[in-house]
């Protein structure tokens, strides 16, 4: 690469530092009236093929990033967020009952569903509007997408565990009871930690007896 002459360097510096594109005359005026034609031509050629180009728009010259590098200036960054409890429930209901309308989702959940909740599921690409139900009011009905299946590693919706399996896994217990048991076991853990494990172990055993009685009863 041949070293640029001082005039070319000056034009380069002036255009680089300029806050606005400049005409040839403005550049020239800035440099004491020098003829900058050759310098501009040299620079254009020099920057051709680089990450930055010297371009002329109308009569105005300016540096800009090369067109094929434009995408670098806008970089996307993913922000991973966990689905809220409400959204998870909605998604589950849609998956198990699809296609369902919003009113149906609400009746299954037993609580109202905020509009944003379904939007989140659609933004995530797991739920889509699947037409309208032909009933009065023609409500929109929702269904899961192919992305949904692939995200959860399912071949098809039939791979979702059935109610019997859910029960066997203890997933059909009312929340309160599951909560209580959870709290109990935590309390026991804590007690064990604090050293008077003996007393609590006994208590636990009794509890278990009662529970196994319960279960026997239920299965009977």
């Amino acid at each position: 690469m041949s070293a640029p002459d001082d005039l070319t360097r000056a034009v380069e510096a002036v255009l680089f530092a300029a806050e606005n594109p400049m005409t040839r005359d403005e550049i020239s005026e800035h440099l004491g009236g020098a003829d900058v034609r050759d310098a501009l031509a040299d620079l254009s050629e020099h920057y051709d093929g680089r990450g930055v180009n010297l371009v002329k728009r109308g009569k105005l010259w300016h540096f800009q990033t090369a067109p094929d590098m434009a995408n670098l200036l806008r970089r996307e960054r993913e922000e991973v967020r966990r689905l809220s409890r409400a959204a998870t429930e909605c998604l589950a209901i849609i998956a198990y009952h699809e296609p369902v309308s919003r009113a149906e989702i609400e009746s299954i959940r037993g609580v109202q569903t905020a509009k944003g909740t379904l939007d989140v599921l659609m933004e995530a690409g797991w739920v889509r509007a699947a037409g309208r139900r032909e009933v009065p009011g023609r409500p929109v009905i929702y269904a899961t997408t192919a992305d949904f299946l692939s995200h959860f590693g399912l071949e098809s919706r039939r791979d979702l565990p059935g109610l019997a399996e859910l029960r066997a896994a203890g997933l059909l217990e009312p929340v309160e009871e599951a909560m209580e048991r959870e709290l109990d076991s935590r309390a026991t853990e804590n007690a064990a930690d604090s050293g008077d494990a003996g007393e609590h172990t006994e208590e636990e055993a009794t509890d278990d007896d009662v529970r196994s009685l319960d279960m026997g009863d239920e299965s009977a």
Partner: protein
Amino acid sequence: MAGGGDDGATGAPDDVPDLPPATLPFDEEAWEAHVEDARDDPAKLYIDVDGYEGPLDILLDLARRQKVDLRKISILELVDQYLEFIDRAGEMKLELAADYLVMAAWLAYLKSALLLPKEEQEDPSPEELALRLQLRLQRLAAMREAAARLMARDRLGRDVFVRGAPEGLRVLKKRAWECEWFDLVQAYGQVKARTAPVVHMVRERMVMTLESALSRVSSMLGVAIDWMELRQFLPPHADPKLKKSALASSFVAALELAKQGKAELAQEETFGPLRLRSMKRGEGE
């Protein structure tokens, strides 16, 4: 040693026009010119005195007038110059901050000590005091020169410029949602559980029925030879919940046996231990 005068005349406030770095090496002619001017217009010199940032600043300027390396400076000459400066300022009725006068007094002391014969010197010796002053002047001079060199560098926004109109880099945030299979399935389970029709079930409690209590008490009474307390009839290793039920049932059983004439009850005082024994034995006696 300079201490800090806290009135405005000591340190130059930052908004007072400062000597530009270029004039920093003391310009004797300019100084003399100022002094000449000041004879007509004392206020002018006042501004210059005010322009000094404390006595050390003046001392450094005076030291520079000796035009020798600061390491070879004559402290005695410097002291004389400073005292003369203070005198002149006094003649011109310039307001001098306490700092300047404290320094003058200290330098006068230093001078007399330096002139004394060595034997009479105390500790620290005047040579040490002079050396300390010299070292301080060297350090101030070094920093002043460093500052000038620093300010003379090619400074961004003054000598060199960044790109005038950068396109800017944008980072767009895109949300990606995350949900685990287990969370999904568990959520459904809980929805179903929450909304399932509620069925109430009474838990089976551990009880001792009246029948079993009756048979237990009567069989135990049959082999007993003396009064027995009611509690002795309870199953010994029962769980506390069962114990309560057993006590109640056994009490009712005891009453029933008494009613049937098979047992007799005794209680010494209210809420005292309830005792019972077989009636057969009573008949036998």
